[in-house]
């Protein structure tokens, strides 16, 4: 794949070309898939922490409350024993309790008024314990070990002091497990997330690489390639399909341009050659001034028709490139057609042709006013050219189904043979029957291009007899919104009285 690496856009692909290290990691992180996955992982972790930690503290607080409640109950029980059996009785009771304990579940201490220990599992009264009865948390010396404890201090009648407490740290293992568990969950989440991200990224990159390869082949000049698109219908496939459609259009355009160049070269050579021989003959034969000037005028006229051809081709090229779509405004197609009919009416009369117009339904649409006018004019012009004397031409504008608008120019002339119909709209095509009539054969191709620009088509049908040329356009407004323009009936079909007009 040496050709790929020469293309700068592709050289930066995540290939083993670059060295491992921070730049590579940075690039991986920048990958949108990885960034997204990392984002989700972070979010998940944050959610987990936000949920777990407050819960843990709330739980701890309530458990704590219960435990202190238990300590107080215990204290009260001991106070009861003291009441029933006196200090010695309590001391003995406490001694029993201590003996029965397995491992310091309770911290118990009975002391006299001078804080001298009488019974319990503390060797001395804890330092720093405030004088009032209450619940305190402080370190005590429990069997030689320093232990942080919660202590409930009670004063008994006679000045005796009772301590009932609990080693706080005894249960911290549970809390250890909690934190451990949380950390574990976060770790699993992170690892799974990162792994998943990398896997997704690899999958994406593989597909993107295949797209890049095809694109490179296309850029090398072979427009027939298409991007691989599996039929899964996911986002990349949709993208690939869209690009494929675009490639097809480009391929058609390029072929079209190639065709046009050939046609131009071929068809412009003829009038240019004629022009040249006219002028050369002039310079060779040197006729009298009056004839010379006549020839020169004819030459100017030749040049004019070549210029017209160029202009028409330029127009076609612009339209094909879709350059004019942004200029669309609201156009009353019926109005344009009526104007066109009115324009050509005298010319039709001259040839004893009847030219009529009919409109049905609201026919406003978004389009290019000038181009639409030109298209309609072209169709009528064609009909005028080819329909022999005494014939009839009818122009109709009507709304079709959906948002379609149909502009039809029908005549009862010789028409176009079915075999020639598909070719009729090609550039420079002129049917056999058209020999001897002026024109270069761009009229119908212009009409078709204009129809396409407006999202429509040009349809040539048999009118039995004659031709019906119909432009079907998309109005750009949904059905049900036609603003019917007021009463425009058949514009004067003022054929002269002697005409045998076929309506």
């Amino acid at each position, binding site marked *: 794949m040496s050709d790929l690496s020469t293309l700068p856009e592709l050289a930066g692909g995540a290939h083993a070309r670059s060295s491992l290290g921070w730049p590579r990691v940075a690039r991986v992180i920048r990958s949108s898939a990885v960034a997204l996955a990392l984002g989700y992982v972070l979010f998940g972790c944050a959610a987990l922490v936000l949920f777990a930690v407050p819960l843990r503290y709330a739980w701890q607080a309530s458990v704590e409350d219960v435990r202190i409640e238990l300590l107080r109950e215990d204290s009260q029980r001991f106070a009861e024993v003291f009441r029933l059996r006196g200090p010695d009785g309590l001391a003995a009771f406490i001694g029993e309790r201590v003996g029965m304990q397995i491992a310091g579940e309770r911290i118990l201490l009975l002391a006299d008024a001078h804080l001298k220990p009488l019974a319990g599992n503390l060797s001395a009264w804890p330092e720093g314990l405030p004088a009032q009865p209450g619940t305190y948390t402080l370190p005590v010396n429990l069997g030689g070990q320093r232990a942080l404890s919660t202590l409930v201090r009670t004063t008994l009648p006679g000045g005796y002091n009772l301590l009932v407490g609990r080693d706080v740290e005894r249960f911290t293992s549970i809390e250890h497990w909690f934190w451990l568990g949380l950390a574990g969950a976060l770790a699993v989440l992170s690892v799974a997330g990162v792994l998943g991200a990398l896997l997704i990224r690899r999958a994406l990159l593989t597909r993107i690489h295949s797209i890049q390869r095809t694109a490179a082949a296309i850029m090398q000049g072979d427009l027939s390639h298409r991007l691989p698109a599996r039929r899964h219908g996911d986002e990349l496939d949709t993208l690939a399909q869209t690009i494929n459609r675009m490639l097809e259009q480009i391929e058609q355009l390029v072929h079209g341009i190639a065709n046009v160049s050939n046609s131009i070269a071929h068809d412009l050579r003829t009038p240019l050659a004629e022009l040249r021989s006219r002028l050369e003959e002039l310079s060779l034969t040197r006729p009298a001034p009056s004839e010379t000037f006549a020839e020169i*005028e004819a030459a100017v006229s030749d*040049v*004019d028709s070549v*210029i*017209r051809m160029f*202009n028409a081709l*330029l127009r076609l090229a*612009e339209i094909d490139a879709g350059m004019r779509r942004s*200029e669309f405004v609201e156009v009353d197609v019926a109005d344009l057609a009526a*104007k066109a009919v*009115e*324009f*050509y009416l*005298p*010319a039709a009369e*001259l040839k004893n042709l009847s030219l009529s117009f009919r409109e049905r339904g609201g026919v406003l649409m978004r389009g290019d006013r*000038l181009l639409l*006018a*030109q298209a309609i*004019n*072209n169709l009528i*012009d064609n009909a005028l050219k080819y329909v022999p004397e005494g014939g009839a031409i009818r122009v109709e504008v009507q709304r079709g189904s959906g948002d379609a608008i149909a502009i039809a120019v029908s005549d009862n002339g010789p028409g176009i043979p079915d075999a020639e119909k598909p070719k009729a709209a090609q550039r420079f095509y002129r049917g056999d029957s058209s020999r001897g009539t002026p024109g270069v054969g761009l009229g119908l191709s212009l009409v078709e291009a204009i129809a396409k620009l407006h999202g429509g088509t040009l349809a040539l049908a048999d009118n039995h007899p004659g031709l019906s040329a119909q432009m079907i356009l998309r109005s750009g407004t949904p059905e049900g919104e036609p603003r019917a323009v007021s009463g425009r009936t058949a514009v004067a079909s003022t054929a002269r009285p002697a005409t045998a007009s076929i309506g």
Partner: protein
Amino acid sequence: MKILLVEDNERVRKFVTKGLQEAGHTVDLADNGRDGLFLAASERYEVIVMDRMLPGDIDGLAIIEALRKAGNRTPILILSALSDVDERIKGLRSGGDDYLTKPFAFGELLARLDALGRRVQVDGAQTALQVDDLRMDLLGRKVVRGTRTIPLQPREFKLLEYLMRHAGQVVTRTMLLENVWDYHFDPQTNVVDVHISKLRQKIDAEFERPLLKTVRNAGYMITAESR
């Protein structure tokens, strides 16, 4: 008329200058934007012909805008190889009064310059146009020649009105297409000829003096003078 021509192409300059001089006009020349701007600002001309592409990538439209901003109201005809309708609109929006694409027929240029430079003073209160014994009532939309009322269809009326507003000046087929039918493309211009002959039939045929004249290779003119 005193005309300023701003054009960098020598052949076009020579060709146009000669033709204008032969038609009786005085022509000042500039072959670049700066000189053109200077001349336009410092002298009085009846019409300016401004090429759009000037040396140094100066856009003729920019010069026109500058002139308009400075309060200069001289009619300007823009010459351009850009034939797109959008370019035409751009040109007119910049302050130009007419737009002619290259290559052009000299007769077209001459007729349009005439129309620009000798604009018939049309005040708002003008209610009628008159040439010889042909009278057009703009308010009542009626046309009378001598004692006879001539019935005209709306488009014929518009056509005659344009011709009469430019009475004594050559009006080309293209000018008629643009101003009477609003067609800024090139349909078969001989269709215009048919309209003209129909009109001629109505206003000239049964009268002594023909008013609607054909000017060879140029266009038409309504005038009372006989040639």
